[in-house]
């Protein structure tokens, strides 16, 4: 979620620290920061991209939620916490009738009626706040609703009241003017949303409908409909602040491929209490930015959220965290987080009875509170302690033992280990939703993959300096309706075969794993992806000349293009009959050079040029190319 520093500041009297300090505070005590963006116009501001974890979507997909975190972490009081204020929604407006079909899918619906608003552009402060977090300003009514959502986390929607069918047109005495139904969509029902897209709804989806006309005017918790859109001509509005079931909204948004800021918040599950705060805040804001008069509210909230209490003791917390925190440390963490607990006089020593604030739906068990303590105290305060010696002897896993045995046997025989993909073009089991859709099957054997791998590697034989490419893989295959680990191998001189791992038996008398060698390599070196060229050079040098010395001279001429060199032939000869023939005076060395560039594909001409330089140099040294 995008969080504006200037917006956060509105919750505090004392100036907040710089953005880096804010970012660190959140990183080490609350959430990962995925990015920081600087906004220069119209005023300097920073926007943090906060990765709110799924357990905190209830309260932290809002500036107020992040401000609360900052307040706890930095131990800076909030100027005002809007969710701690006591609010009232009055007067009651009896001309709106609400009907909720299924109270499990809509736990609360608050409607507010405002008359005489003047729709127009938003004031600068409102527009700038929304634009800073990447929202487009639409008009003062829509912006007010969006602002409150990003401020408190409660999604809101405004309908143009004049576009709803009213009963008064039929002049029925005493009947209520507006009927709002929260119901499942009807078979074949369609809706055109605010962005002019038409969606075909299914019966499992929840809609807001105009009870008088019977038409859907919004997809509950996802998006509003075009029918009752607020426009410049709008004067009377009905505001919706509701609580929809997270699972239902999630399924609908997924099915329609329509994820919105509203659906994202409902999906997490939010407190129905929040609907009241959202309504109060948005109506107050609308009066401020668009004028008008509140006519009244209706609030359908049959089963209010019950207050939760969780107890945690000091010793319990220390037992899990491995700390030696005192009562004071814990009290401090709870106070900073705004988690009210019963005074120590009222509870047994060392026990904290916490009254969970309504918006913190993530707090349910003592461990949840321990996490709150740990992150506010700071994870750096958790000591590092090795486990005590184990009372049992660890078991040897026969499968892994066999894998290790197989691995070592094959490596000893010169096979190198590869992993190929489990995905294949054919097989018994198919993956239904593979990204890209290629190779959707699970492999039935290792041999197909090994054959491909062999072919690929044979091309690089010279580069690798191998006489023969030999590969093996220990991996899972799906065959004959079962999952099985097999050992596959292939070589240039042998066909690909695979054997069940069970062929490699474990020593039943083994008391531990065999002490097999680890890779001794310290660093991997990237290799060139370009093709290479092989050139051989053979030359006579005086006896006593080391091959390494010759190679040094050669390499120095090849401008780092020699990626591999191998001495593949050596022989000595006498200096000819004139010298008696017995004493060996010169040696012939033959080298195979592999030339390759990191930047491009080498051409034959380039390789020739390199070799010419080499020949020139060795001749200069008095060596004689053969």
């Amino acid at each position, binding site marked *: 979620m995008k969080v504006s520093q200037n917006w956060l500041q509105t919750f505090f009297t004392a100036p907040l620290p710089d953005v880096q300090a804010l970012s660190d505070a959140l990183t080490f005590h609350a959430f990962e920061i995925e990015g920081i963006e600087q906004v220069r116009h119209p005023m300097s501001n920073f926007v943090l991209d906060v990765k709110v974890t799924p357990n905190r979507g209830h309260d932290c997909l809002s500036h107020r939620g992040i401000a609360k975190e900052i307040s706890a972490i930095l131990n800076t009081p909030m100027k005002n916490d809007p969710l701690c204020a006591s609010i009232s929604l009055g007067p009651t407006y009896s001309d709106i009738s609400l009907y909720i079909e299924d109270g499990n899918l809509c736990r609360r619906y608050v409607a507010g009626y405002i008359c005489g608003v003047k729709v127009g552009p938003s004031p600068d402060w409102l527009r700038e706040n929304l634009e800073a977090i990447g929202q487009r300003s639409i008009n003062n009514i829509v912006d007010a609703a969006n602002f409150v959502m990003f401020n408190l986390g409660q999604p809101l929607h405004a309908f143009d009241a004049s576009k709803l069918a009213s009963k008064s047109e039929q002049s029925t005495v005493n009947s209520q003017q507006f009927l709002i139904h929260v119901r499942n969509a009807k078979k074949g029902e369609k809706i055109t949303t605010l962005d002019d897209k038409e969606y075909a709804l299914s019966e499992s989806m929840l809609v807001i409908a105009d009870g008088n006309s019977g038409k859907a005017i919004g997809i509950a918790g996802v998006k509003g409909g075009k029918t009752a859109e607020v426009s410049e001509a709008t004067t009377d509005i009905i505001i919706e602040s509701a609580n929809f079931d997270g699972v239902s909204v999630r399924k609908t948004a997924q099915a329609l491929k329509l994820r919105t800021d509203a659906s994202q918040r409902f999906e997490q599950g939010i407190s129905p209490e929040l609907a009241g705060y959202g309504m109060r805040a948005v109506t107050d804001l609308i009066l401020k930015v668009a004028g008008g008069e509140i006519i009244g509210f209706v609030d359908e909230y049959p089963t209010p959220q019950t207050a939760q209490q969780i107890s945690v003791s000091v010793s319990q917390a220390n037992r*899990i965290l*491995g700390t030696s925190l005192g009562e004071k440390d814990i009290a401090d963490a709870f106070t900073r987080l705004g988690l009210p607990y019963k005074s120590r006089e009222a509870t047994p020593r060392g026990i904290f009875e916490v009254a969970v604030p309504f918006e913190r739906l993530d707090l349910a068990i003592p461990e949840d509170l321990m996490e709150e303590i740990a992150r506010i105290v700071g994870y750096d305060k958790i000591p590092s302690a090795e486990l005590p010696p184990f009372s049992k002897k*660890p078991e040897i896993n026969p499968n892994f033992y066999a894998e290790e045995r197989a691995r070592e046997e094959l*490596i000893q025989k010169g096979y190198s280990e590869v992993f190929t993909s489990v995905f294949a073009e054919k097989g018994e*089991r198919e993956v239904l939703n593979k990204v890209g859709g290629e190779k959707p099957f699970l492999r039935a054997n290792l041999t197909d993959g090994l054959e491909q*791998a062999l072919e690929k590697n044979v091309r690089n034989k010279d580069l690798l300096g191998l006489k023969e490419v030999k590969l093996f893989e220990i991996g899972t295959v799906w065959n004959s309706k079962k999952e099985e680990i097999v050992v596959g191998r292939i070589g240039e001189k042998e066909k690909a075969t695979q054997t069940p791992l069970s062929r490699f038996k474990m020593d039943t008398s083994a008391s531990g794993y065999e002490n097999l060698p680890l890779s*001794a390599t310290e660093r991997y070196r990237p290799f060139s992806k370009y093709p290479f060229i092989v050139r051989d050079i053979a030359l006579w040098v005086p006896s006593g000349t080391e091959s390494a010395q010759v190679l040094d001279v050669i390499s120095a001429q090849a401008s780092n293009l020699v990626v591999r060199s191998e001495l593949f032939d050596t022989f000595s000869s006498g200096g000819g009959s004139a010298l008696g023939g017995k004493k060996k005076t010169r040696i012939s060395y033959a080298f195979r050079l592999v030339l390759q560039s990191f930047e491009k594909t080498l051409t034959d001409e380039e390789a020739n040029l390199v070799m010419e330089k080499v020949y020139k140099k060795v001749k200069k040294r008095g060596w004689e190319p053969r």
Partner: protein
Amino acid sequence: METKTTRGHIHPISSLIREANRTFFDMGFTLVEGPLLESEWYNFDALNVPKDHPSRDMQDTFFLETQINAEHSQIDADKNTPALLRTHTSPVQVRYMETQIKKGIKPPYRVIVPGKVFRNEATDMGHEAEFFQIEGLAVGEDVTLANLKGTLARFFHELFSASSKGGSSSGGKGGSAPGGGATSVEVRFRPSFFPFTEPSVEADMRVVGGHVPEKLRGKWMEMGGAGMVHPNVLENVGVDSGKYQGFAFGFGIDRLAMLKWGIDDIRLMHSADLRFVNQF
């Protein structure tokens, strides 16, 4: 000239698993394995990942055509029907503890689970659809978050700062011996969220000292997720969460290998390319 067969090369992932197993075996951990084709129950539900909740989105899953076994009740079928490629090694925690309880063996438990896992996402230098994880689980009456820190510190220390293991055996890789100097490994936690741990943390590691590749020296590296096993997970497998508690962690082995050897592209692991493998 020489007739002796030269040794082939071990895949870096296998070497790393071998080394990890050695370290953890010494600390009393048993290596266990589990199937790659998993049921939704073991991969998600038993791990306290609710259905139709955003926390399932944290892992992009490969789903398979399911085969409902009519002989079992629906719940049993759901529990055992392979329905997906496991997205993490954590289902093996559940399978292991469940099996132990069925055998009448109560905690303490200490296990590690190295193995392949799958994520249905586009691949690039840092992401693969199939990769390896190592899971660790320690359950007992007094296993703490501090023990998690200590255990990880020891593991990372053995992996990243143990002294040079001697000469290089691989082709053309003259090991440039870095300067000496004491090395030490620090572990730090950051808050995080996983449905199967509470508290949940993200573990970072930093290697300091002379004997450290420059890319790693002094820098904090993200290693993976960890935390204290959620009581619901313990209860789901029949372990009394009032009496027992424990830690769990899950790290990407590919990532550990990339850090250890300075490998720049995760896709090399499954490339079956000896230009890569033969360096190890």
